[in-house]
């Protein structure tokens, strides 16, 4: 075990998998010589060379389109999109092509690739360096969406994602890139892409979170305990396909649900989770589910802390759910 932050853990996973499997290639803007604007690919260019760690022209559509082609050939590309806010020029390639290749070719053309991209706010990035766009990808059948909250999961989930036969969007919560530190095993291991984890056990209210907001949910849980409310916090880890069993089991126990995400509320992923719980566990609910999310506005700059669903907004929601 070594202490690592999330940047180091992801870097470690990439290095390990590139050494183990020569089909794995990394490509993107500034990923080579400089090792990425967040230094996630640092050192890989020196170790694996220009053919496998590739600085590309400035075109997300070009990066993802060619990565799809590489995957069709049989490589396992791991393209980086510098900020998830810049993924939209590649949206057509992702949702019309990557997501549908297996299906439209009757399984002849699977695309094994992982798109890594930093997500989320709280770094003074304004509209275009802060968004958390999971819902826009979950909505398109065929994509898996992962968002780790800690270094251990980040490494294990990334290794599992690269080995997964389906395309994966790997969202890295940049607010905790360096803040979240933890023990990470040196060698090879994976974290199951089908399993959420219960980060904190409790009996009164279920709080569902992921990525950077997990820490806010845990903080709110500690404060709720002071008020006599026992909170269970679930870290989804893989957002889609959702580990529905873990969610339903928890809600059956607590009867109360709070869902947290940074993205705007309307048509956000929280709406889907609440709907699923209503469909599958309606008679176990003792209170109306609550969503604590970003507001339905573009992501602001100066007021970003008032935009994010931080602990100070999760706590009253948890208390409200508990008292209902």
């Amino acid at each position, binding site marked *: 075990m070594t202490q690592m932050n999330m940047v180091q853990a992801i870097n470690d996973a990439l290095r390990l998998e590139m050494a183990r499997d020569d089909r794995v290639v990394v490509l993107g*803007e*500034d990923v*080579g*010589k*400089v090792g990425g*604007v967040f230094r996630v690919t640092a050192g890989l260019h020196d170790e694996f060379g220009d053919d496998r760690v590739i*600085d*590309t*022209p*400035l*075109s997300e*559509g*070009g990066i993802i389109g060619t990565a799809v082609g590489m995957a069709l050939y049989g490589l396992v590309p791991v393209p980086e999109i510098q900020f998830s*806010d*810049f993924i*939209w*020029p590649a949206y057509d390639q992702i949702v019309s092509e990557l997501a549908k290749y297996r299906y439209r070719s009757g399984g002849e053309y699977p695309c094994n690739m992982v798109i890594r991209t930093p997500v989320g706010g*709280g*770094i*003074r*990035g*304004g*509209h*275009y*360096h802060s968004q958390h766009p999971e819902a826009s990808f979950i909505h398109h059948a065929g994509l898996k969406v992962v968002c780790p909250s800690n270094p251990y999961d980040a490494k294990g989930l990334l290794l599992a994602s690269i080995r997964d036969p389906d395309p994966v969007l790997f969202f890295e919560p940049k607010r905790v890139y360096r803040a979240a530190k933890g023990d990470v095993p040196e060698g090879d291991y994976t974290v199951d892409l089908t399993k959420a984890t219960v980060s904190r056990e409790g009996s009164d209210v279920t709080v569902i979170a992921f990525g950077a907001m997990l820490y806010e949910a845990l903080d709110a849980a500690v404060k709720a305990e002071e008020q006599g409310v026992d909170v269970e916090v679930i870290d989804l880890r893989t957002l889609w396909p959702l580990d529905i069993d873990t969610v339903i089991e928890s809600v059956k126990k607590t009867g109360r649900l709070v869902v947290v995400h940074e993205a705007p*509320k*309307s048509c956000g992923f929280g709406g889907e989770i609440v709907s699923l719980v209503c469909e599958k566990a309606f008679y176990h609910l003792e209170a109306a589910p609550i969503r604590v999310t970003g*507001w*339905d*506005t*573009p992501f*602001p*700059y*100066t*007021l970003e*802390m*008032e*935009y*994010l669903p*931080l602990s*100070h*907004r999760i*706590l*009253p929601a948890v208390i409200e759910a508990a008292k209902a």
Partner: protein
Amino acid sequence: MVSPAENSSATQSPPGDIVHAMRDDGSLSAEHDPGLSTQQVVDLYRHMVRTRIIDERLVTLQRQGRIGFHIGSLGEEAAIIGSSFAMGEQDWIFPCYREFGGALMRGFKLQSFIDNMFGNANDAAKGRQMPDHYTCREARWGSISSPIGTQMTQAVGFAWAAKIQKKSLACLVYFGDGSTSSAEFHNAMNFAGVFKTPSVFFCRNNGWAISVPVERQTASDTFAEKGVAYGVPSVRVDGNDLFAVIAVTRAAVQRARDGGGPTLIEALTYRMGGHSTSDDPNRYRARDELEPWVERDPIERVRRHLQAKGAWSDDQEEALRTEVDGQFREAVANAEKTPPPSLASMFEDVYAEQPWHLKEQCQQLLSGARAPKAH
């Protein structure tokens, strides 16, 4: 990599030779002399120096933690000031993110710019955007977006609209060498060519897109030659030569206004600093790459020109610096005294009229607990 050496040797690709107006001794060649009065040159010089001083001060503010970010124009002042100057009052400019000096010259108030850098209540963008993402319609200057390339097609559409309505204007769009790889560049060039829009494409080829050198953006010898494929006339200009930049931009504007359609200008310059305050260029480029460009510093060249004519003195230089410093300090003091935008302002301008759900969410925010201040 573009090297200054290239600037003196002619390239025989379709766009032709690199246009220079200034000789090394500071005198002007007759062919590309834009015919400015001495006073005009002094004014332009002052704008260039002002831009650089403000750049330096903003970097300091960022290092002190007083602003969050800055993306500067160190070394690109002639390209920016010269091209913005060549645009008439009726013309429009769609900026990238490095051209605040041009906006200030066209009437954007320093105080407004600094309010944007602080994202305070007086910022015209209402503190919603990152620093350097200001908005200033008054200066006929577009609002700034981070996603690379998006302004290029929009600028073409803007110019096209004016053409449809038979208004005489030109619309210039700024972008970097890296941005020519975006789909938007190709769409913009193609549409502009097909519809002969009154567009000026101004490519600041500063050699780098963050850590990626120009050889990784294109296998073409020049960016200008990309115009050939789209039927868009193009020209390469010494981007560190204020006079040459003005001459070629004026010619492009004239062609646009005369119904001759678009022009692609490739200005050869160099990003003398990091990409932004978040970047350390020593990680990826050799320090000695900078030296030849220091010798061709666009500001020094104009100063030598003015001094040779006896039109600029050290005293004037000193006075200019003191003046800009004073204006800057005052603007910063005002900006720091100004409160952040109101909480309710976050929900405004999403739509022209606020729908029920935003009213509801605004109410929720106002009646809830306040967020921690720290980032």
